[in-house]
Each structure stands twice: as structure tokens, then as C-alpha cells.
């Protein structure tokens, strides 16, 4: 049931990848192709494997001539969808400085796109979802949209899932317009999405109700102490000694 079990070893990971990630082979530069293929597999089939992607970044760290900025941008986009796990930050940590790589055919897009991605990340992290969608749809990010996210299957749905997680934890009932701005949907699309989330949509009042879950049921708890027998053992044994 561990929350991190899926994050640590997703069921979609094959044994080959598992060996690569957990063993010493991950340092072998010739394996980078396998991991990159796995990444594209993840992109196309809406899966996500954080540790394997981090392995790619580590190989890039040690072998700067293998560096492929497209791969990096894809990894970062995937990491965006993993909020609230700290994956995006972990990826950034592994992005070392590189000397300008003259071996690339096209100019390196990473330096221009990186700040944009970081802005997106900050907005998500601060739960400013409507601002996120505004920025995402803007002209600045057209590059990202045209080249990257269009290939990444289910990217927008995954972001909506991030928003849903936050909303689910915080609200019991929420105004549908507000929800619409959070997930960038409206009208019938919104209703369909809400239904998929298994929330109830009350069309008369325009309010969406969220079923109870551990996070949005609150109650005042008074934390009592547990006094365990061993803690009292000294006191009790002393009474026995005293005649």
C-alpha cells in the first residue's frame, strides 16, 4: 500500500530496465539508447518511471557528448506531471552545466526553454492552476506545445490529475466554474471529466461534490499518550522489592 511503491518500481518497468536501474550497468554509456527508448515508450503510453529517467540524466552528467536536449525536455515534462512528488527538482539537480556542445545539428533549445519550464513548475507547485493554464496556452510556450507536449500522450490529462489531487484534498464542494479554471475545461467536457473522477455534478447549482477521502474529512483529534507496560516496569518492580 506504500505510496512510494509505484514510484519506486512502476509495474510497467521491464526486467531489463530494472537491472539497468539497480545495477552497475547504469553507468555504461552504451546503455543510454535502451533507456531513451524506454522514455519514448513512456511518453507514448502514458506511463511514468522516475528512476529510469533519472538514470538517463545521470549518464548525461558523466558523458556530456551523449547529451540530447529533446530527451531532457521530455523528461522534465513528464516530471511536471508527477507533482507532488519532488521529481522535477530531482531532475534539475542532475542537469549539470555543460560546455557549449558544438556537435549538435541544431542549436540547443534547452537554455531558452528551461526557465519557461521552471515557471510552469513553480505555478504548479504553488497550486496556481488557472495561471498555469494561461501560461501554457500562451504564445511563449508555443514551442513546447508544438514540439513536445503534442507527442506526449495524455500530458494535459496528467496535469489535470495533479490539480484534481489538490482539489480532492482541500474541498468537499467546489463551484464548477472555479473547477473549470483549474482544469481548463468547461461545459460538457467538464462534466465528462468530473464524471470520470467519480465526483458528482449538480447541474442545478453548478456545484461539484467530492466524495469523502482521508484528506478532506477533518475532525478534532486529541492525541493521547500510549503508556506502555515496559515504561512502568521500573516503578512496578520497585514496589515488589519493597517487602
Amino acid at each position, binding site marked *: 500500500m506504500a*505510496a*512510494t511503491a509505484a514510484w519506486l518500481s512502476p509495474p510497467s518497468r521491464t526486467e531489463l530496465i530494472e537491472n539497468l536501474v539497480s545495477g552497475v550497468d547504469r553507468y555504461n554509456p552504451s546503455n543510454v539508447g535502451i533507456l531513451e527508448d524506454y522514455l519514448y515508450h513512456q511518453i507514448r503510453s502514458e506511463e511514468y518511471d522516475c*528512476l529510469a529517467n533519472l538514470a538517463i540524466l545521470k549518464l548525461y552528467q558523466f558523458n556530456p557528448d551523449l547529451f540530447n536536449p529533446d530527451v531532457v525536455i521530455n523528461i522534465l515534462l513528464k516530471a511536471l506531471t508527477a507533482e*507532488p512528488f519532488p521529481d522535477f527538482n*530531482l531532475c534539475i539537480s542532475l542537469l549539470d*552545466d555543460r560546455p557549449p556542445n558544438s556537435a549538435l545539428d541544431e542549436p540547443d533549445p534547452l*537554455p531558452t526553454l528551461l*526557465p519557461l519550464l521552471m515557471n510552469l513548475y513553480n505555478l504548479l507547485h504553488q*497550486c496556481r492552476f488557472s495561471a498555469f493554464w494561461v501560461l501554457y496556452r500562451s504564445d511563449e510556450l508555443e514551442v513546447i506545445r508544438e514540439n513536445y507536449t503534442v507527442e506526449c500522450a495524455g500530458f494535459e490529462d496528467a496535469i489535470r490529475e495533479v490539480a484534481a489531487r489538490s482539489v480532492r484534498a482541500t474541498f468537499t464542494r467546489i463551484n464548477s466554474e472555479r473547477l473549470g479554471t483549474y482544469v481548463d475545461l468547461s461545459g460538457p467536457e467538464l462534466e465528462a471529466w468530473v464524471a470520470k473522477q467519480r465526483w458528482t455534478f449538480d447541474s442545478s447549482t453548478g456545484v461539484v461534490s467530492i466524495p469523502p477521502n482521508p484528506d478532506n474529512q477533518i475532525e478534532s483529534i486529541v492525541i493521547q499518550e500510549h503508556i506502555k507496560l515496559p*515504561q512502568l516496569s521500573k516503578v512496578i518492580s520497585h514496589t515488589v522489592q519493597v517487602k
Partner: protein
Amino acid sequence: MAHQRVALWAAEPDLDDDINDTDVDIPIPMPSSTNEMYDDPKLQLDEGSLQAMQQHIAQQAAFAQIPDVVKRFIVHFHQAVLDNNLQEVTLAYESGWTRLTEKYYAKTEWPEAETIAPLVNDDQIFLILYRELYYRHVYSRLQPNVDDRFHSYENSCELFNYLLNSDGPVPLSLPANWLWDIIDEFIYQFQSFALFRSRPASKTDDELTMLGSEGGAQAWSSYSVLNVLYSLIQKSRANEWLKARAEGKSDEEIEEIVGEYGTKPLYRMLGYFSIIGLLRVHVLLGDFTLALKVMENVGLGQKAPFTAPTAVHVSTAYHAGVCYFMLRRIPDAARVFTGVLTWVMRARQYHTRSYQYDQINKTADRMYALLALCHVLAPTRLDDNVMNIVRERYGDQIGRMGRGEEGLSTFEELFLYACPKFICANSPPYDDPTALASMLIPPTPTSPSSQNPSVVLGDPTQRHLRAASSHFMSLTPVSSLKSLLKLYTSLDAKKLTGFLDTSGAGVDEEEVLSWMMVMKNAGRCVGRVNTGSTAANGEKDNDEGSRPSESLLSGEWMSISDLNFVIDQNMVHIAESTVGRRYAGWFIRNSEHAARVLDSVKASPLPPRIIPTQVQKKSADGPKGEGAPRTTGQKVAWGGVKVA
């Protein structure tokens, strides 16, 4: 022993002959024609032989300068190593070396290995070990120059080569302290070199050429460092050994599993320390998940499989805590830090003034600072002793950080103080002068914002700092929200916005709701479920606190905030959880104290008997007084004075 020393001393005049014969390091053709030189009437001294002669003389002079005490010590040390006399070696290593360093070599280097070679009969192995100590001294007390760095790398390579690639396990027996210091120092020198080479701006030409050469690229490369560590682990099969121990296998089975290398304590300890070393290297390179992953079999409990030096625990805990901190698992980080800090405080008096003592203190200081940061990001109840110290040292900073955005600089300051010195895995392109030059030129101001130094000579520490600060910044509204929400059980969102809009900056409702969601997110994080009991120490425990089979990365979502709320359309409902009165600890402590007092009173001799005449009289009256009806209105107290 003394006999031998005297013999060596007495033989001193003969030693000069030895020097002539045993020059190992001079590549110049050895003038065995030394005698011939004198014979040759034409005296054709070529450059090479002249240099050789000069070096001889210099060496002899240097040798003569070494104090006798030092010479005796070296001989004694060498003998102990040869005999595999662990106790003597430990003594010499821990106290002898440090004492002599303080006395004679506080500001200079120890004599070069070549100079003392004759004292130890050119035992190469001992010389390698000696050089290890020599360079360690250079790195810690003095400033190593480029040559030193390259030579120390070569020496380390030789040492590990010897340990790993000889036919079969090496018949050395060294104390655990030294082995840990070897690994620790190796990584430290790597870190130091990485920091050194990442700053091309201030290098002299010599240094640049050296770094750009073929040898320069190879020295201290990340791959070779990792290679050494992984090889040590694999050779000694340390992981399998830890797993087998955890599963409770018998000694014979364990021996079988670990093979001939793993059974020797030298290799076993080296393997174990290498795992910790890997943890550290991965943290330095910024890969926090991998760092925790390699520690799978070790776990973070206080139980080391053997009495490891304190420094090991401290280092492990510090780096693991940093990993958890960067993974935003604040409660885990705080728990790791408090655990080791309480242990250090208690065990402080047992530390020897070893090489590692200062290190331990410095690391402990950094951990206190990190604890302060943890407290700001996720305030939870922690062990009081440690928290008191933290508050004492960092009380102001915690206060400032709690006040929102203005606390950012304090946060960054503390983080920069406390974090490890992260390094870059690659070096700037020393072999390509044009590329190097373009790196040194500051970027043209076409980059979007100053937040983009990641392409040019960015400091890896800055990257990590930014990650941590962004998390801090997103949590800044939480504290003011918390203080407001504590006052209510239910509150309308508009009203809340009104309260928060004190500065008239136009905080709108949407923003407030975002903050609420952030706060909710901050109230939950992944933490390691404490499967074991947190009962009093010294109990029979089944090592539950950190089962090795569970990865350090696993955990559950847990709530860490005591203030819980939920939003119903526009209405915020709040519930606070409080901690009930904890009386058990106080009660138990005081009962035990009373018991002790009672025991001591009982055990002490009775006071001498005083003839209690006066008292007896009163006590005779007493019962009567009690029995008499109180109609007289006189107050009679037991043994008291009768009120007339």
C-alpha cells in the same frame, strides 16, 4: 623492539650507503658511475649525474633534519604494520601520528616518502600507506598545489590497486579508524579537486597545461572514483554480507556467501565503508534517490554490524538527511538528524582527539542548521533536548524565516552554510582552449532573466539552493494562514481574503485558495512509517526501526500538520488536533525519584535516640484530646501546643 632501534641507530653511518643504492624515484640514469666520476680525470659530469648528485645531497640533508623521535616512530610504526599487530598500529596511528604532527609538523609537511624510505627498507606497501598519511596532512593543514593533487591521486590508485588486484586478499591488518579515514579522505580529495578544476578563471598557465593534458583529464575522474568504490563493494561482497546478517544466517553460511575476501575484516570494513562513501559521492553529484538506494542494505539504525567509528554514523546520517531534505521528506530528515545528534551529545566524552574529531563537530553544527530549516518547513514536535539547542543557536533565524518572504535570504544563508559542497561531474574543457575561453566570458544579456545561470559556469550548489528556496517560497503564506485559521472553526473565504489583504495589495480570493491548497499539500508528505516501537531504549528490540529489506525510499503519505481544514464551496471549516496532556513521563520520573529517595532513607543509619520526654507527654495528651468531645472549643492538634 628497543634492541632493534638501537641497532638501527648504531647503523646510521651505514645508512648513507643504503641511500646510494636504493634510489627508486629518480628516473635519471643512476650514476653507478659515481665512483668512476671521481676517477675520471676529465671530470665529465653530464647534466643528469649532476642532478642526481644534488638530489642525493639534498636527501641526505633532509634525512638528517628529521628529528630522532620521528625516525624512531616511523620505524616502530613500520614494524607494527609488518607484524600485523593491530593494537600497536592503532596506537601509533591515533596518538603517535597526531602528537608528532602537533609538535614538529604543524605548519610544514612531513618528510617525503623517499626521504624516509631507508628507515623502512623501502617497503613499498608501507610507503604507500605513509604517503596516504602525508597527503592527508597536506590537504588538511596546508594548501595542496596541482602537483600534490595529481600525486595523491596516483598514490590512492596504487593503494587501491594493491588492495584489489593482488592475488588474493592482502595480509594487512589496519584499524577501522584508518580504513574509514582512507575512504573518507579519498572522497574528500576528489571533492576538493572537482571544486578546484571547476574554477578555470584563476589558474596559472602551468596549471592549465597540466589540467589540459591527457593525465589531467584522467585524474580524479568521476568514473574512476566510482569504480574504486564499486569494486571494493563487489570484491568484499559487502551487500550480500549485510543481507545475510539481516536474515540471520549462520556464520558458516555467511562465510560461504562472502567468499575469501569478505571474511577478512580489512575487506569487510572497506566494503562497508565504501557503501557509505557511495552515499556521499552521489549526494555530492546531486543524485539523491540513487544515494538512498545504495544504502538499502545498511539502513539507518544505530546498529552498525561492528563498532564503526563515530564519524561513520555522523557522515551517514548527515548525507541521508540531506537526501531526505532535498526529496522534501522533511519529517524523515528531521528524524535522522535528531537521532544522530542525541547520540553524538551523549557519546561526546568518549571521542578521542582523533583526526575526525573536528570533522564530527563541524558536521554536527551543520545538522543543527538543517534541523532549523526543517523546523521552518514542517514544524513538528521533536525531541526536546535537541530542539533546545537548535532554538538557542538559530532562534532569530527561525523567527525571521517564519515571517514570510523576507525570510528568504536567511533561508538561503543557512542552506548555503549547511549543505554539502556539491560538485560538478565534469570539468570545464581544459583541453580545448577556445571553448574554455568562451566559457569565461560572461553571457550576453539575451538570456531571459538572471535566473538562468545554468548554462554558464553555474555552481551546482546554486541549483540545489534554488530548488530548496522555491519550496520555501511556496510555503511562505502558510504561517500567516495558520495563525488566522487557528482562531476559527469556520470562516468564509471572502472574510479570509479580507483579513489577509491587510496591505491592500489586492490579494484576491483565487490566490488565497491557492495558498490554502498549498497549505494542505504541505500538511502531508511522504514519510517512513515507523514500524518499530518508539519505546524506551535498552529494550529487547528486534531491530524493527529500520528493516533492511525495506528500501529507504519507501514511505507513506502522512499528515504532519496539526491544523486541518476543508473548504465547502466558499466556507472553510477548521479542525485542530491537540496533544493531550502528557503526564506519563513526569509521573514515572517522579515515582522513580521518590523510590530512590525512599531507598536511600531506608539505607541510611538511624539518627541517635533522643529521650523524647517532652514529646511523650504531648503524645500522651494527644489521644485523650482526640477522644474528648470538642465541646470545649479548644483546638488540640497532634503533638501541638495547647491553645489556652
